[in-house]
């Protein structure tokens, strides 16, 4: 299949859908079925993505390496520097295209049901199209500039969609928070890009004069510099993927419509950070890798613990997303590109499913709620859950949670909503990592194995710590996810009124759930994924000197050239990582695997068992435990006081600084301006006014007076007596003749 035309179609289709809306908006109208336009565009993009994927299947050897196919054009020649724009196509791009188009298409379909009746229904789909375009553009860009453009575009779309119901304060504030928080990271990313640019005079990633090729030639003297650049670029990913400490915007972003949460804040945009970090994999050094791994592990653990105590169903999923993104970062930081991207792929599907499932529940509750309150409005009750937080907050909620999203009002929904229950259960089993039959197990297992393998092979204390944090986070993940399921779908209904009104969602919403549930099974297992995605080399990551595993042997292989099959296989794993697809011949890898798989069983059993004790069998009262562990509970309830910290320190500092600057403005700048004003008024204006009155007006008056007097005199020439005129004529003729006689 030709790459460039198909990628062009993938990009143009959603952009055209958005342009259709935008151009029509100029005339002040909207097409009511924008949903069909946008959905059709996404389905076209999906078909093209599938066609492109056949390329990878047909030729895995070629496309499994990163940067396999580049189609680039010089875009902006500036002096000696050329900025290029182009398409990058390799297996990672292809997988990302598939993930984005599948999830986006399903979210479009889901939204047709979910957003039905919203006053800005066409605009919602137009924004979804714009987002899809931006995300796809980001994925196919072959250079940092293009990635950055797509990066900021998805940020804008995220802003627009979080704040879709901007009439209320909460979404309006959330979208601002999301935009500004990610911007903090983007500044770091931009500085990182500029560091690379000043060094390499290019922003292209691949090719002989691309950043990766040039970076691989750097000597150890440049390692500190390269580490800083890598960490700065990772800052962008920290913001976009909501890693600690910039994670606070993502839970607030749940104020947006639930399909948006599923698409942007679970499957695609937040994964863009992981994608970027993976793309920058070859320039990561040992130090920046370790930094990334720690950020990822801490995020995974902290977000998971916060999720335990949340009652808002979407907030639980938001923290779960942050936690899972932490896993991906951890994998990449631990040197396993493949595991990170694999977890990204599986997570995209099951987390989108969880969000859409929660959207289904919320939708059902809203419908119920409305039916109870406004029987006559039943037909219009769908999709406007934004109207609820305000109307009913006082009666149902003491923590600012929308009652339709509050799990304490739920319970026993499995009989009411069987499809939603089953699909969400599948996704939960997947994210909890139930062994072998769910995709989440494979990807999470891959992450844990890679971290432990790195710990064993390098004999690195850091990686043992990271592994423990990840394993603990896995237990907690299983716990809080089943807490969500138990509280929502099992037991007795806690709010009979809302429970009675709830019903299964329409087929438009159910079908995407079913499709995503199918995708949560291990359709792509780890080995096949590894067959198609080859790990790029990390020339600047070397095992520490005291490592038990002799990493130098692999380096030697690479340096001697690809003399034999074994060396060829290891050419892309000179960081002492053995390609799993080549067989588990590496003893350290085998050892890690043998530890992790049994551990996974333990993790799942402990996590689910504890959850069941608390929330299914109710042998232990959660409230009692919370009371016993009051300080910890308070800490978790307040999300480790991150928001308060930011409010107290950053916001307060900013406000205080603004006040100081405001005073400075008021006293000093205004003083200067006023002083200048007084001086100008007293001096210049008076003088210039006098000058105006005397000279300028005098001149004008003089001209007028001269004209008047000349006119008054000349007027008399016009005697009206014909003989005077005649005299003048004859006299003139005579005079002329005399003159001519005198002259000639």
């Amino acid at each position: 299949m030709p790459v460039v035309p198909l990628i062009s179609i993938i990009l143009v289709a959603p952009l055209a859908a958005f342009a259709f809306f935008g151009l029509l908006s100029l005339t002040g109208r909207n097409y009511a079925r924008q949903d069909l336009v946008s959905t059709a565009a996404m389905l076209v993009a999906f078909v093209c993505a599938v066609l492109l994927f056949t390329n990878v299947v047909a030729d895995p050897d070629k496309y499994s390496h990163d940067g396999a196919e580049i189609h680039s054009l010089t875009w902006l020649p500036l002096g000696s520097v050329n900025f290029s724009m182009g398409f990058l196509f390799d297996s990672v791009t292809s997988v990302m295209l598939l993930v984005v188009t599948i999830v986006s298409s399903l979210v479009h379909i889901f939204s047709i049901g979910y957003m039905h009746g919203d006053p800005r229904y066409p605009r919602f789909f137009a924004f979804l199209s714009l987002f899809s375009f931006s995300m796809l553009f980001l994925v196919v860009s072959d250079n940092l500039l293009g990635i950055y453009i797509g990066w900021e575009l998805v940020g804008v779309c995220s802003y627009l969609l979080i704040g879709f119901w901007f009439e209320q304060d909460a979404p309006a504030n959330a979208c601002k928070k999301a935009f500004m928080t990610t911007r903090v990271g983007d500044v770091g990313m931009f500085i990182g890009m500029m560091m690379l640019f000043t060094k390499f005079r290019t922003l292209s990633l691949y090719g002989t004069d691309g950043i990766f090729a040039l970076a691989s030639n750097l000597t150890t003297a440049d390692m500190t510099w390269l580490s800083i650049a890598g960490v700065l670029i990772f800052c962008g990913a920290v913001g976009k993927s909501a890693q600690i400490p910039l994670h606070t915007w993502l839970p607030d972003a749940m104020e947006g419509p639930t399909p948006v949460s599923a698409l942007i804040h679970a499957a695609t945009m937040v994964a863009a950070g992981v994608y970027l970090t993976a793309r920058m994999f070859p320039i990561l050094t040992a130090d920046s890798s370790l930094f990334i791994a720690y950020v990822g592990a801490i995020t995974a653990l902290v977000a998971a613990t916060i999720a335990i105590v949340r009652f808002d169903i979407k907030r639980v999923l938001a923290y779960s997303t942050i936690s899972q993104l932490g896993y991906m970062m951890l994998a990449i930081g631990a040197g396993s590109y493949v595991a990170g991207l694999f977890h990204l792929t599986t997570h995209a599907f099951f987390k989108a499913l969880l969000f859409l499932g929660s959207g289904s529940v919320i939708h059902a509750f809203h419908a119920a709620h409305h039916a109870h309150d406004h029987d006559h409005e039943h037909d219009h009750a769908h999709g406007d859950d934004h109207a609820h937080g305000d109307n009913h907050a006082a009666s149902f909620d003491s923590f600012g949670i929308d009652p339709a999203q509050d799990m304490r009002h739920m319970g026993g929904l499995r009989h009411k909503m069987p499809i939603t229950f089953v699909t969400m259960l599948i996704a939960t089993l997947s994210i909890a990592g139930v062994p072998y039959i769910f995709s989440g197990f494979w990807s999470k297992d891959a992450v844990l194995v890679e971290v432990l393998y790195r710990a064993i092979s390098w004999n690195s204390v850091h990686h043992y710590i990271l592994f423990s944090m990840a394993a603990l986070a896995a237990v907690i993940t299983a716990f809080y996810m089943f807490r969500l399921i138990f509280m929502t779908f099992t037991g007795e209904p806690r709010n009979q009124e809302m429970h009675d009104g709830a019903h299964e969602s329409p087929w438009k919403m159910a079908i995407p759930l079913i499709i995503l549930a199918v995708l949560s099974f291990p359709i792509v297992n780890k080995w096949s994924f590894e067959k198609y995605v080859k790990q790029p080399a990390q020339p600047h990551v070397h095992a520490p000197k005291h490592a038990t595993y002799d990493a130098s042997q692999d380096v030697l292989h690479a340096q001697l050239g690809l003399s034999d099959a074994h060396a060829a296989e290891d050419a892309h794993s000179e960081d002492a990582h053995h390609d799993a697809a080549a067989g588990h011949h590496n003893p350290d890898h085998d050892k890690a695997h043998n530890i992790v798989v049994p551990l996974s069983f333990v993790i799942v059993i402990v996590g689910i068992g504890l959850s069941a004790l608390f929330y299914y069998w109710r042998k232990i009262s959660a409230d009692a435990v919370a009371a016993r562990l009051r300080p910890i509970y308070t800490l978790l309830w307040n999300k480790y006081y991150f928001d308060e910290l930011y409010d107290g320190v950053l916001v307060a500092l900013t406000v205080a600084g603004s006040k100081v600057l405001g005073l400075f403005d008021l006293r000093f700048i205004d003083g200067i301006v006023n002083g200048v004003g007084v001086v100008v008024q007293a001096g210049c204006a008076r003088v210039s006014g006098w000058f105006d009155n005397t000279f300028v007006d005098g001149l004008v008056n003089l001209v007028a007076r001269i004209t008047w007097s000349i006119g008054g005199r000349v007027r008399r020439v016009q005697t009206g007596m014909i003989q005077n005129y005649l005299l003048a004529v004859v006299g003139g003729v005579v005079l002329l003749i005399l003159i001519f006689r005198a002259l000639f």
Partner: protein
Amino acid sequence: MSLQSYLVISIILFSLGIFCVLTRRNAISILMGIELILNSCNLNFAAFSRYVTPPDDISGQIIALFGIVLAAAEAAVFLAIILAIYREFSTISPDETDTLKG
């Protein structure tokens, strides 16, 4: 009785006509001045025809004849205009018909 004597008479008539046109305060007097001018011209034509052109060429006389015709036409129109002015202003003095005075 040479050409010059005729020419001198002619220019005397012409100058008197001009003086008359420029100075008289009566429209009919002005007309008379114009007639004097025309007569001087005709006299000129006739004189040149007699003294300068060949004897059988009397074009000068014919031009003078046309001059008389023009004078007649001019006089008729002029007097008609004088009558119209008189009816309008009750005077034919150019002094007093000065509506165009600035």
